[in-house]
């Protein structure tokens, strides 16, 4: 009887303690590597298309469907084996893949590839791709470009016709109203599609790594990622992250947020307040107030999840699984589940506390 009472008390205490911890998404991670069919462990990008999952890897494009992997490579027409970025045309179901050797369209199994030699593509190294209406927006190592799929016309964006001071574009996000380019070393470029006007957002502190005044502007010039959702621009850089609502900036750094690292490979906004951050030291989720980090421990590799509340209190959550690696490169959503691209495998985060 005493024993049962003790258990009950302990349970009550634990529940009370957990109740004070912000409720953040819990996942059971199932990891894929070459051992179970992934074309390569180095996964640059992941994209979910309903019940199908595409993985852009260093050695081919993988399609996970009905619990089996199908792999597309250069023999199938893929522009290059290293697939860096993915975008889905929701209207047609076609997939666009940015690779180290050009841009490929995968349409019902047929692959057509565009390169700098056979098309108007500005450069073969395609870091980012986005689909907006009939336009495919591309971020390359030699500027951005747009393919109008109806007319076949390519329009190039570089230092000749935009305020871009560097032409190493890393990522692009596009809507019918705004297009944003993440430019490595040259901030963020914004195209107003209605007016055709370009604007540029730079780090007010210049190219150094100082942040003199918090939230004064873009956190850093080396921008790796942009995600425009609900009129909010989420920005990832190698020195922290930013959120821009069109008027005010809010910056995130390790020292004043729950970010596990300032080195961000990709940021993906869910909506105006929620976003995921893919960093070199784990995957982070921000719900507008609190943070959660998912990763194998940097010390011993054991699965780890931490939650940071608004007051900055960090609580470790007991978990038994984690993403395949802490170097996270991409994320996409499948209902409440997440799929995570890492440097050493692809992870399927099965949501445990969805309700």
């Amino acid at each position, binding site marked *: 009887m005493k024993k049962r009472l003790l258990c009950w008390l302990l349970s009550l205490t634990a529940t009370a303690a957990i109740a004070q911890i912000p409720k953040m998404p819990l996942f059971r991670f199932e990891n894929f590597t070459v051992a179970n069919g992934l074309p390569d462990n180095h996964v640059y990008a992941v994209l979910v298309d309903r019940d199908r999952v595409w993985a852009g890897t260093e050695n081919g494009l993988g399609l996970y469907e009905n619990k089996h992997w199908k792999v597309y490579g250069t023999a199938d027409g893929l522009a290059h084996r290293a697939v860096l970025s993915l975008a889905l045309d929701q*209207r*047609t*179901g*076609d997939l666009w893949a940015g690779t180290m050797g050009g841009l490929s*369209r995968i*349409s*019902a*199994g*047929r692959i*057509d590839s565009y390169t*700098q*030699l*056979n*098309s*108007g593509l*500005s450069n073969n190294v395609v870091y980012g791709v986005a689909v907006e209406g*009939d336009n495919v927006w591309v971020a390359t190592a*030699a500027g951005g470009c747009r393919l109008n*799929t*109806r*007319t*076949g*016309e*390519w*329009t*190039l964006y*570089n230092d*000749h*016709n935009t305020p871009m001071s560097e032409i190493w574009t890393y990522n692009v996000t596009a809507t019918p109203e705004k297009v944003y380019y993440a430019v490595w070393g040259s901030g963020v470029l914004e195209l107003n599609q209605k007016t055709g006007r370009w604007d540029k957002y730079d780090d007010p502190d210049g190219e150094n790594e100082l942040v003199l005044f918090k939230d004064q502007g873009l956190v850093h010039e080396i921008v790796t990622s942009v995600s425009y959702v609900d009129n909010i621009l989420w920005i990832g850089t190698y020195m922290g992250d930013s959120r821009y609502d069109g008027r005010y900036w809010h910056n995130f750094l390790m020292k004043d947020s729950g970010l596990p690292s300032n080195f961000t490979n990709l940021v993906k906004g869910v909506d105006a307040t929620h976003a995921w951050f893919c960093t070199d030291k784990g995957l982070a989720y921000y719900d507008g107030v609190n943070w959660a980090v998912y990763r194998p421990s940097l010390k011993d590799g054991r699965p780890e999840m931490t939650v940071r509340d608004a007051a900055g209190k960090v609580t470790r959550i007991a978990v038994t699984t984690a993403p395949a690696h802490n170097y996270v490169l991409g994320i996409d959503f499948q209902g409440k589940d997440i799929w995570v691209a890492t440097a050493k495998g692809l992870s399927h985060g099965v949501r445990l506390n969805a309700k």
Partner: protein
Amino acid sequence: MSRHLWISARILALLVAVYAVRSVSPVHAVARPIVAVSSGTINRNERSEASQEYPNEARAIPVEQYASPVEMLMSPNGARLYVLCQESGEIQVLDAFSGRVLKRIGVGRVPRGFTLSPNADKLYVASSWDDHVAVIDTQRLQVIATWKVGAEPTSIAVDHSGTQLFVANRISNDVAVLNAKTGSEQRRLEAGRGASYLTMATDGSRLLVTHVYPNLGEYRTVPESEITVIDPHNAHVVERMPLHSIAGAFHVALSNDGHLGVVAHLHPKNLVPLAHVEHGWIFGDSITVFGTDIGKGIHGSVEVPLDELDRYFSYPFGVAIAPDKRHIYVTNAGADVVTVVDVSKLLAYIHAHPGGFAQNLGASAHYVTARIAVGANPRGVLLSRDGRHLYVANRLDDTVSVVNTSTERVEKTFPLDGPKTISALRKGERIFYSARYSFQGQIACTNCHIDSTFDGLTWDLEPDGFGIGIVDNRMLEDIRNTAPYKWNGSNPNIPTECGIRTEKYFWRSQNYNDRQLADLTLYIRSIPARPNRWRLPHGQMTSAQERGRALFVRSKDNFGNPIAEKNRCVYCHSGPMGTNQTSFDVGTGKRTDLSGVFDTPQLTNIALTAPYLHDGSARSLEEIWTLYNPADRHGRTNDLTKDQLNDLIEYLKTR
């Protein structure tokens, strides 16, 4: 009549000439060519076509406006036959029993496909030269709307709910999805090259798309075509059925139960040297059957030859499957027949030959049960609901043959409204589309020049040795003033190109007589250029096109250095056709060429005609300069930035 007068009358009867626009009426909505011609003997060695080939050009008269029926539909009650007339740009509505023409409805230029709404209250017609869909109220029999669509809409289908229209666009290689109530375009689906014909499954579960050109492949590889399969419910492409070795796929049909599919197509042999014609050396005429009836699953398919050992049935085009699935009917447009295939015999033969038999010219004897002679250039076919009658649109006869499927004989022939005399131009067109002049009826001009254009293939057709002189097939549009002809520029005029050369190296058969050659030449000279889809109205240009034009005519390079006159784009590609009609060595010759000197090709609709260069080694316009102009011999281009090259190409697309 004296011999003198007879000859004069004959000359007069054959007079016609160069482009003019005939008055437009609801029925005669097509811009019609007027062609100048003479007849009688042509001096095949004469060089100047304008002055010597056609001495009577000044006496031009308008040509006749033929109906040229290509497709048909029947009203649900079987009372009306709707006939799509390509040349007159109209629908002729016939009494299906008597053949009497009840109404003629103008729909726009060069309509190629149409469909009825599920409740048959509307007829949707794709007018390929106007880039619109005409909507006809079938009660009032008049056009109630025209909706702008893509580039060269060629076929149209509607889903079972009647809410979505699918339009195959031949030039933009896609299928547009429209709201069937408003005509607003919702999306474009990537199809194959030259998307042209659509067939909806009887249960509405899938839509099949076929293509008149093969997909662009690697240099000198087997042509690959596809049947694009669309799920009409979510309007996504869900499958691409490969058609290996096929270029020029036309109609596709599905049985009512959906278990058997048939597509009519050409099987070119463009990789082997054209050493001879016999044994199907240059072309095979075949169908591919697919579906669960074939026994290899839904993805299985078998190519089925229609030719015989010593007779060919050129240009399979229209196809229909009998409601009881006992027979397949195929029009052979170049042979003026309908081929009847017994399905049970065919399936037995397929199962007995699991390794395939695409090259076996003896095979057809085992499953082809009849060849029904119909009119000239039979195209679309339509079965009555009970399957007792087969309607055949005879494009170059302006008639519809009604075949009794029990007797396998033409029971009636419905004449369509239109001219009853056959002009020289029409005769020339018939020659162009007929295979009767080639050895054993294997090929017609249109085999390589599909619908009087091109085929997207390269051929080893020169009599200069095997593997020597590989040439890209050039388009025929608006070529009358672009002599000389042939990539080496050795043919001074069209009669030489189409007479001696064709007779000797292609047909390996009878020569045309002088009158036939004159008629054929007349027709080829009359082939117009289709509307250029990249040009803005009133000669306006986009900023990229403007910049590209400046590069095209520039005299200094990016470094301020003068460009030698002969190394400017505009020097060789001068004039309205984009050619100075002279040959040059632009550094593109290969070891397989006898000479590096090639005729300067015209630029007419150049955006459509990939691959490029004399041997088709450049798969895109970009590759002409990114891969094949290392020493700036094909114009000074290596100083161009990527932006500038894109601009130049945007300008070239407007030519």
